[in-house]
């Protein structure tokens, strides 16, 4: 590149509470043109129709941007709307709960979910602030301890040993892009060309089992099966960590798997139970809610 990037983080505005209203108003007037990327005339894509727009009607307030480029949009305005909605509808009405939570969190549950925008565990399973310590990565994968450090297992360690959560839920879902990438990836032996492929190959065992059992099914149906098989593998990988396995054996920690099908809005869930007579584990208490 012929030029050096001189980046600097600039604090633009604080969307703070009402008593700073005067300050906020002033910044609004100068704020909106700061969303140009320096002098380069950024070609902004038109804002997509999000659920926000449908809910608030024609949101003139946040669709209006800098008048110079009619394709810019008001990121700041949108975020402010979103945060104030949370503050009005949740935070202030339950201020006592939030003040208590501000001192300490003690969630009962840890969830490992997918980063997919459609499957936020709080949204789908109804967790409120303070209830669930949440890890989200591509295809909700848990790698075993022998694979070394990942962003997921550092969070696992914190939740289990420090926060002492009592329940771990691995939540997978249908139409998972990560699993689709795993199922369509051809070259297992050679160099993985992309980071996505490299990561989803952690689900290789689930893929092989799926292909063995259901190669006669359509690609989509195989993906559905692989998504479920992958949850099982992630659950088994959880107990490769001694501080999890020990706690599952004593009953201090319970592990659950669940699969959210977003085509028909159904939830299949099961529990991992220890075998009484040996050191193994099995799946129990399977239910489907639809």
């Amino acid at each position, binding site marked *: *590149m012929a030029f050096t*990037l001189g*980046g600097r*983080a600039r*604090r633009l*505005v*604080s*969307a*703070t*509470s009402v008593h700073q209203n005067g300050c906020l108003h002033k910044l609004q007037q100068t704020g909106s043109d700061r969303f140009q*990327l*320096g002098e*380069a005339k950024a070609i*902004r894509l038109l*804002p997509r129709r*999000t*659920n926000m727009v*449908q809910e608030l009607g024609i949101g003139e307030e946040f669709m209006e941007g800098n008048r110079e480029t009619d394709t810019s949009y008001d990121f700041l305005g949108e*975020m402010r709307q979103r*945060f104030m909605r*949370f*503050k009005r509808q949740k935070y202030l009405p339950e201020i006592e709960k*939030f003040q*208590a*939570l*501000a*001192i*300490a969190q*003690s969630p009962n549950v840890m969830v490992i979910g997918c*980063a*997919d*925008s*459609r499957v*936020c565990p709080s*949204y*789908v*399973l*109804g*967790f409120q*602030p303070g*209830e*669930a310590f949440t890890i989200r*990565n*591509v295809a909700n994968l848990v790698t075993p301890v022998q694979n070394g450090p*990942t962003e997921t*297992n*550092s*969070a696992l*360690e*914190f939740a289990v040993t420090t926060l002492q959560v009592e*329940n771990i839920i691995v939540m997978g879902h249908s*139409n998972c*892009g*990560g699993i689709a990438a795993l199922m369509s990836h051809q070259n297992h032996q050679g160099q993985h060309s992309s*980071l996505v492929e490299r990561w*989803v190959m952690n689900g290789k065992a689930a893929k092989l089992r799926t292909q063995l059992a259901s190669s006669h099914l359509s690609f989509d149906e195989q993906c559905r099966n692989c998504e479920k098989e992958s949850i099982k593998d992630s659950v088994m990988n959880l107990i490769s960590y001694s501080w999890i396995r020990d706690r599952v054996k004593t009953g201090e920690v319970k592990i*659950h798997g669940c699969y959210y099908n*977003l085509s028909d*809005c159904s939830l299949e*869930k099961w529990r991992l139970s220890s075998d009484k007579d040996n050191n193994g584990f099995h799946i129990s208490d399977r239910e489907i809610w639809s």
Partner: protein
Amino acid sequence: MGNESYEDAIEALKKLLIEKDELKDVAAAKVKKITAELQTVSSSDSKSFDPVERIKEGFVTFKKEKYETNPALYGELAKGQSPKYMVFACSDSRVCPSHVLNFHPGDAFVVRNIANMVPPFDKVKYAGVGAAIEYAVLHLKVENIVVIGHSACGGIKGLMSFPLDGNNSTDFIEDWVKICLPAKSKVLAESESSAFEDQCGRCEREAVNVSLANLLTYPFVREGVVKGTLALKGGYYDFVNGSFELWELQFGISPVHSI
């Protein structure tokens, strides 16, 4: 206790916890109890927490109040997603972006980890983060990556407390939080004499900036930023004061001057 206001009690508790760190576990247990009491609707018998019942109730409510009342949206989402945002948020149970920023299904591709950190580009170590960013930028074509830090972050507190000298007391936590060591160094250099709590607050914000800078080590992010198809934003949610701050990483090519 009758005359003391709620605010005074909270202030007194905070002060006590700052002075006597070992009481934190006792406080957490009491907080759990109070929260449960506040959430109880009518029944006086205290059932122990049943996760299956909890998620069943949550899911059934979601289906009834959200899924079934918006078939057009969920029908589209079943075909695919096209979120405008990629968000990095902390795994902390109190800061889910769906609550704090009112994200609905389809709005944001969300990665959650300890202290919302983005490690520098590495094909082998922490490939999960790289995979998420690659997927969001190249496949989903998000327009913004927002890294959101927050107050009272346990991960940042760990970063500030651990010596990080190679003698690790944890299996993975120290290895992870040291990603934002530059933030710790900066805060210590600038405010050596400040109270630990203040230093943590500064570090929570500086760590977001370290993550934003690390985002630029991913070739596809750099390309998007230079082309103007991708913007990098930082945020900070303060749940103690009920406020939210937002900022941007800015780049530009200055006007050309003939010299």
